[in-house]
């Protein structure tokens, strides 16, 4: 019986070849469905991995303290609108309080300058953000300075640390140590430069590559008021102490704010969950659309098989006359549907792999196609072949041999 099923596949391939263009078009439908589904899911997975890498790069033990108007639910829109200072509730006092806690190793404020005008000579440079912070930012971001040093003079002064992208945008070179530029009319010079930050697409964090870090206290003098801090990054002495530090920060800050908890203490791993859920939602939505394409491909198979069955009624009659049972006829036509859909599935996987390579070359995306997806897609195409091939095959099997013979 085993050799018979191998012959089955051969026979199926041959009869599909006899209506070549129809078969190719039908297979094409499945190819589109399978490759679209795999590509979408792989892009989603890739983005999730990239965000996770980003976060792991900084360290999972990072704690973020934010004023309350930046809840994690609206974090994305808040950052997109770039207005953080409106009702700021974190102050220098809060920073000092956190620094004084026992298990805190580093604490750095991030104070975003509103609409900074960065100039070199008379030329304005756009697409750069200016952040006031302290020297603790270097160990917290887990990113060493590639050139130069961190702020001198206790974090007061006109020296700046530049991200790689910022340096390129301002000076057109990656190395700009000692060169001067203006922020809101005040002169600064490059004291240190970071190596390239790992950045992920769709990340809800700032892209530190395009940031100028200036001393925290300089922000106040630039803005003409106290520095408005949009978040304080904290690193505990020991990653295992993270939960203790979070509760400590919460209780002491609440006390300092007169019993009102108008801030949130987030852990980096939570933001991983948040971004993951957003990406998953998007991925699932688009994958569902791709799944519909696959479904339509399946209908294409059913359509073709129905036409084939009615075209080959005479053949069915002859086969039945020479002793084919209903089951054998069913198997023959089911096998044709399966050959169509599985070959579409395999080609679809290959196409998805090619698209994957193309995306990696032409964009910053790093879509991932695990083996399980390939197996799953092939299995899915098999299921589609069976599901959509069953009705036409059953129709063929049920044909009355006499009527079928008359059909020749």
């Amino acid at each position: 019986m085993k050799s018979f099923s191998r012959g089955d596949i051969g026979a199926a391939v041959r009869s599909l070849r006899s209506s070549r263009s129809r078969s190719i078009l039908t297979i094409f439908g499945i190819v589109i469905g399978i490759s679209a589904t795999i590509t979408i899911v792989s892009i989603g997975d890739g983005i999730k991995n990239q965000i996770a890498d980003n976060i792991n790069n900084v360290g999972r033990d990072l704690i973020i303290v934010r004023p309350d108007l930046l809840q994690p639910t609206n974090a994305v829109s808040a950052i997109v609108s770039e207005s953080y200072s409106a009702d700021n509730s974190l102050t220098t006092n809060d920073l000092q309080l956190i620094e004084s806690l026992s298990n805190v190793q580093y604490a750095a404020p991030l104070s975003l300058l509103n609409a900074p005008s960065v100039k070199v000579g008379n030329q304005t440079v756009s697409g750069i953000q200016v952040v006031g912070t302290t020297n603790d930012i270097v160990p917290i971001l887990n990113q060493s300075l590639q050139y130069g040093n961190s702020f001198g003079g206790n974090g007061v002064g006109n020296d700046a640390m530049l991200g790689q992208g910022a340096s390129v945008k301002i000076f057109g070179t990656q190395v700009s140590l000692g060169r001067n530029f203006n922020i809101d009319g005040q002169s600064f010079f490059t004291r240190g430069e970071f190596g390239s930050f790992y950045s992920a697409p769709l990340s809800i964090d700032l892209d530190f590559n395009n940031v100028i870090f200036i001393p925290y206290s300089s922000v106040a003098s630039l803005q003409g008021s106290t520095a408005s801090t949009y978040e304080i990054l904290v690193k505990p002495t020991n990653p295992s102490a993270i939960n203790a530090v979070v509760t400590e920060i919460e209780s002491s800050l609440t006390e300092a704010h007169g019993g009102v908890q108008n801030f949130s203490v987030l852990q980096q791993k939570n933001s991983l969950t948040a971004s993951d859920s957003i990406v998953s939602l998007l991925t699932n939505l688009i994958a569902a659309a791709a799944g519909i394409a696959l479904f339509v491909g399946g209908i294409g198979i059913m359509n073709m098989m129905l036409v084939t069955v009615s075209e080959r009624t005479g053949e069915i009659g002859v086969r039945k006359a020479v002793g084919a049972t209903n089951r054998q006829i069913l198997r023959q036509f089911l096998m044709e549907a399966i050959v169509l859909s599985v070959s579409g599935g395999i080609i679809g996987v290959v196409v998805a792999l090619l698209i994957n390579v193309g995306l990696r070359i032409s964009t910053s995306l790093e879509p991932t196609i695990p083996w399980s997806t390939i197996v799953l897609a092939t299995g899915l195409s098999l299921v589609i072949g069976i599901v959509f091939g069953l009705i036409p095959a059953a129709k063929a099997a049920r044909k009355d041999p006499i009527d079928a013979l008359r059909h020749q």
Partner: protein
Amino acid sequence: MALIEITDISKVYGFGGATTVALDEVSLSIEQNEFVAIMGPSGSGKSTLMNVIGLLDRPSHGSYKISGRNVEKLSQNQRAKMRRDKIGFIFQSFSLLPRLTVLENVALPLAYRGLSTNRRIKAASSMINRLGLADREYYLPRHLSGGQTQTAAIARALINTPSIIIADEPTGNLDSNDSRLIMELLSDIHKDGTTILMVTHNPELTRYATRVVYMRDGMVIHDELTAPGLVAPTARKAMSYLPFRTEEDDFAGVSALMKVIPGGDSPVDIKSGRNRKINKKSKSRTNKSRRRKAKS
């Protein structure tokens, strides 16, 4: 014990007023190694009888035994297996699968028995050899002559060494040369011990048969043994008039006449050209259908 034993077999199609009786309590007993020619006008039930005997169709009533085994109530699957193992079909239209080579066509029934590809090809090849088509094994049916095609079909019918061969006008689509070839082949198969049932319109072909059964209106009206080499006596009588004029044709002729006779109960006015045209048309249609009937 008779090979084929049918008793009071009826086959009824349709319901109520539209009921058609294709077989009307036919009883027939056919022994091993008979060569039975079945004759009769179109619609006489020959094909239905062949379908029932060939297990393609189930009788409405009556009993049917093959080698003593009751088969009238078998399931579709059981009938398929019985067809595969006991019965070989030869059709007027050859019925080879056009996309398969001669070899594959002949091997087809073996596939449904679950034989390995190797054994299938070996068996089919030796059968094709036996029937003298060895050099055509890898041809497609459309590249063969009519006689060769029917020979291949016969090879296919013989491949499972059936005890019954059912041939439905096997020479209907062949010229006289090929017809003789095929009939001699069937005759050889008969000599080897296979029982053959052959539907035919050609009285000449009864020369090969050992027995001739005449049917009309779903009934067996005459059943005679015949000497090999001679046209059966009743068939010879039929030869003089059967292909040209039947009672049915007479009826058709009368009704066609009624249409054109002025003053008949037909409302047609022959003076109007348009109607006359229509009349001509209907007349020619009648003629055509009559011719078609005579041909089939």
